[in-house]
């Protein structure tokens, strides 16, 4: 890496951050923190921004120019300003990719150690990270949930609701909570509520606010995108939360394809949980990042 560093004032950097859509949900304190701890870097064509064989010391926001990103399979794609460089690796704690400047590239560079520290001190940064990755994931999937493929046959309809402890056990076994905090799982169970819908019930329409989601217990949901594309998902799929986390409205219609039993959770409750359980929030971001980029 042969980047040169220019001297921008803190106010310059603050304005660059303020005007960059990737930071739009940061609060004023978080923006000030970042402005004071980032540097402007300029890379000539061919310079490395991150290297697969080096630890990731910095991540970048592209201000100008474009970069080539080399995937694990050797293929290359181009990323233009105002994209982020290195963030998925930083969040998922995976080795970085080889990323080189395709043109002259100006970036704001952030030290990963500093970001780690700030993440815990200021939830707004974590929140912003979740928003960005959720948005990336939504875009990668074209707005629809990931197609789960052929669904397993439905078992017997659960006439009686699961008990509080059974629900904690179920949730505690999921990858998000299995090695983070069972108490966090219990908190979420307390905030969610069981809902039952008849076949044909419209769960939501495209364009509605996405401030809640469902974790399916029994039944199937038909999701219909703007272009008419369909995906049918079944238990134990979780759907609908990503839009809220990305601060975007519903991208598809969701209709109960069978009778439905599910737990309804509000996006705000999930965010509140992340705020109180830092390790859970970091794990969540890493999981999303894995889904979105690897």
């Amino acid at each position: 890496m042969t980047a040169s560093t220019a001297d921008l004032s803190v106010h310059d950097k603050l304005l660059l951050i303020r005007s960059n859509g990737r930071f739009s949900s940061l609060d004023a304190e978080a923006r000030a923190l970042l402005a004071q701890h980032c540097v402007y870097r300029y890379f000539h064509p061919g310079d490395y921004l991150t290297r697969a064989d080096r630890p990731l010391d910095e991540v970048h926001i592209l201000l100008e120019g474009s970069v080539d990103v080399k995937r694990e399979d050797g293929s290359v794609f181009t990323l233009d300003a105002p994209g982020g460089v290195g963030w998925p690796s930083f969040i998922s704690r995976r080795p970085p990719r080889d990323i080189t400047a395709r043109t002259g590239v100006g970036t704001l560079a952030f030290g990963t150690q500093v970001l780690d520290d700030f993440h815990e001190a200021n939830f707004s940064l974590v929140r912003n990270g979740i928003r960005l990755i959720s948005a990336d994931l939504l875009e990668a999937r074209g707005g629809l949930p990931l197609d789960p493929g052929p669904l397993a046959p439905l078992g017997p309809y659960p006439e009686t609701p699961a008990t509080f402890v059974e629900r904690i056990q179920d949730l505690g076994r999921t990858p998000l909570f299995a090695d983070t905090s069972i108490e966090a799982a219990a908190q979420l169970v307390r905030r969610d509520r069981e809902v039952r819908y008849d076949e044909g019930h419209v769960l939501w329409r495209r364009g509605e606010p996405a401030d809640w989601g469902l974790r399916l217990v029994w039944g199937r949901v038909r999701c219909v995108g703007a272009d008419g594309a369909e995906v049918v998902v079944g238990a134990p799929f979780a759907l609908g939360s990503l839009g809220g986390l990305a601060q975007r409205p519903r991208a598809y219609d969701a209709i109960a394809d069978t009778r439905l039993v599910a737990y309804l959770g509000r996006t705000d409750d999930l965010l509140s949980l992340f705020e109180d359980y830092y390790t859970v929030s970091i794990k969540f971001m890493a999981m999303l990042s894995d889904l979105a980029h690897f």
Partner: protein
Amino acid sequence: MGGLFRSVRAGEHRDTAAASVLLFCVVTAHALLETARDALFLSSVPATRLPVVYVAIAVSIVVLLRGQARWIGRDRRRTLQVFLAAASAVTAGFWLALPLLGTAGLYALYVWSGVMATSVLVTFWVMLGGIFSMAQAKRLFPMIGVGGAAGAILGSAAAAGLMQVADAPALLLAAAGAIVVAAFASGYLPGTPAISTTRMDGSGGPAASVWAQLRLIVTRPYPRHVAVLAFVTAATVTMVDFLFKHLVSTALTPEELGPFLANLYLVLNLASLGSQVFLAGWITRRLGVVGAGAALPALLLAGGIGVVAVGGLAAATALRSVDGTARHSVHKTATELLFVPMSVSVRAAVKPFVDVVAQRGGQVVGSVLIGLIATLGADERVFAAMVVALAAVWLGLVIALRQPYLEVFRKQLRYGQTAIPTFPELDVGNLETLLAALDSADDGRVIGALELLDAQERLSAVPSFILHHPSERVVLKVLELFTKRRRVAAVEVLRRLGDHRSAAVRATALGAISVLEPDAPELEEQFRDADDPVFRAAIGVHLIASGALPRAEQPALVAQMLAEGGAAARIAFADAVRFRSAAGFEDALLTLAEDADVQVRAAAARAMAGGADPRLLGVLFSLLQAEVTREPAMAALRTFGGQAYDFAAAALVDEDTPRPTRWQLPRALAALDPARAAPLLLGHLPEEPDGMVRYRIIRALQTLVRDAPSIELDADHLQRAIRGAIRRAYRSVERMLVLDAGAAEAPERSTPGHALLRAIVQSKLDNAMERLLRLLGQLHPSEDFRRIHLGLKSDAPAAFASALELLEHTLQPALLPPVLGLVQDLEPAERLERAGDFREPIPHDYTELLSSLLSDRSLTMRGAAIYHIGELRLTRLEAQVAGASGHPDLVGDVRRTLGLLEAARDG
């Protein structure tokens, strides 16, 4: 002694035993060699020649240094074996050659004894520093040191015994034999990887020069301090040694010297062993490494004063006895521990330099001083006075070592990366930057610049023509800021916005005019002519606020405006209310705060700013729960000032306040009035039943103190909260032990419910630890407890050991054992032993524990206990389970368990 053996844990026995035996053999050999050397030298050469051999030793070892630096970078076990084999041969060679060498041979023998001991021991301790972590070293070095002390005794006893039947040179042969055994013992130590001694960053390169080592030491405060300390220590003990030998050689005949020295060394070595076994570990644990390092200079200072006052051989012997007892036990342990926190490459460079150049340099300086004083014909009191002066400097250096010592651990944990900056004041250059940003094509950049200028009260620098900006977002922001700042001069430009393409801009501009230059008839006319519901909603608010409408007509008009036009009109209505900061719209805002659309609720929250109606407070606090409404609700609450604070303070202690609202209160209180919130939150912390509220109180206190460092938290309250956290942590530890023991005793208890209970208890323990460390951070704001916490959770031994070391040097004695008991890797019984008064009585019977968990404050714990009781069919707890159904969330689990118990009871 038992404590010393217990300090060796599984997996450490072989390495510890090998190191101890090796040291035993080397020190045995050295004791034999030392006795032979002193007896032969002092009986033939005057004591005043001692400074000459001290200098010769120093010079010889410096010459040796370069070779040693090169050797030490290789496989250190092999290096040690080679040194030992060579040392044995040379020592045996002296036995053969001494009769042929005469007085020159005695000088050579004296020098050799110093060179041999230094080169072997330096390699040995550097190697141990690479094998053990700081935490292990503190436990194991005292045990290893016992080998050294025992070797000294055996060597002295063997010397005394041999002197009865043989002459002094025979001791040399015995020493050579002991060194051969040491070479064999070194084969049992683990091999350690080769390291570079040149590139002090550990990156490898050519062999180190003395200058490279010197540069490293000079540029790093901690190694520099350790080197200076070693230098002064050596000068002091050289002076002590000379003072003693000078007096003893003049008081005794040559024939009396050998037996006297052999017996004295035996006694001193016995005392040293006792000190090593009974004191070294205890002092190191109680006083820490730095405190233990202060023991010897303090004692020598007192002893030196005694010699100055009393004089004579007895006093000098007492002084030498202090040195002989403590130097190779307590002091040696503490000194070696000083090197452990250094990185492997730094230690490999610094340790030989300190042991050779600094120590021998100290000896040289001590010797030169002795020579000077002797030349002046001074008596022993002058030498004793020098001992006093040097010991005082030494003691001062040890005390001053504390900060650089702790800094090494702080650096290891990467302290100082998280300083939360304060934003710099706006200077002329930055003002230009912001004004230039107003020309940007990027709306976000323009709005950012406007907000910054407003925040720093420089909005007057923004020209009015920015109202013609092509972006609606920018114009709306300018209108808001100009109105807030009462920019009357902009009214003429505002009027030109009357035909703006955006209804929102037209309505807001009109609203701004009505605030800056009230003109009710104009508003009324605009309202009457408007057909856009968004425009009508905004103008309607301004019309009502201007007082132009009769009061009786207002409610109907408001209802009409809220009903027509959808969410956009309701948002425009709320925004107009905010614009006017007008009273009289409270009922409408309360309605909007319950709107299905979160953006309408957020607009309502913004509009509540500046209100005075206490009904708004409850709504605003509940709006803190949602992400979108939190920031505007908090901003509105700030405008209520003391009224909002009092409301929140009362809601915090009211257990009927809904849980989600209570969770928001600590942060809100801290933001509303930090100075009043600090004692309130801290005082309430131990009383708070909800764990999540406790956690948020701690977080709020951290933020509060970070943002307003002048606020001091009451130490007594903090201590109380800390004690509460320690008690809760030990309660979890003990519960975990009962659960584990119960499952081991009856494997059928290992059910999913048991696993869940265990996971919950572990989670409670993790929470308690996190909260404890956060609170300790408040009690000791100069330490970065977040880093310490990360270190304690780290898998890297060095990070863990650094965190532990900093804890030990930070916590007050009453808290140290219980806190260390929670963080150290200890056997269960040993852990609970450390708890002291922090243990609470909990049932140790498995079933009794489950019974007690049914009344735990945690709903999750109660639920898991109910579930597990059902799994185990514990029918005798049926009544308690039935009584535990007080919470709606638990109804299902209680019913399930009662069903299982009933079935079990019925057969």
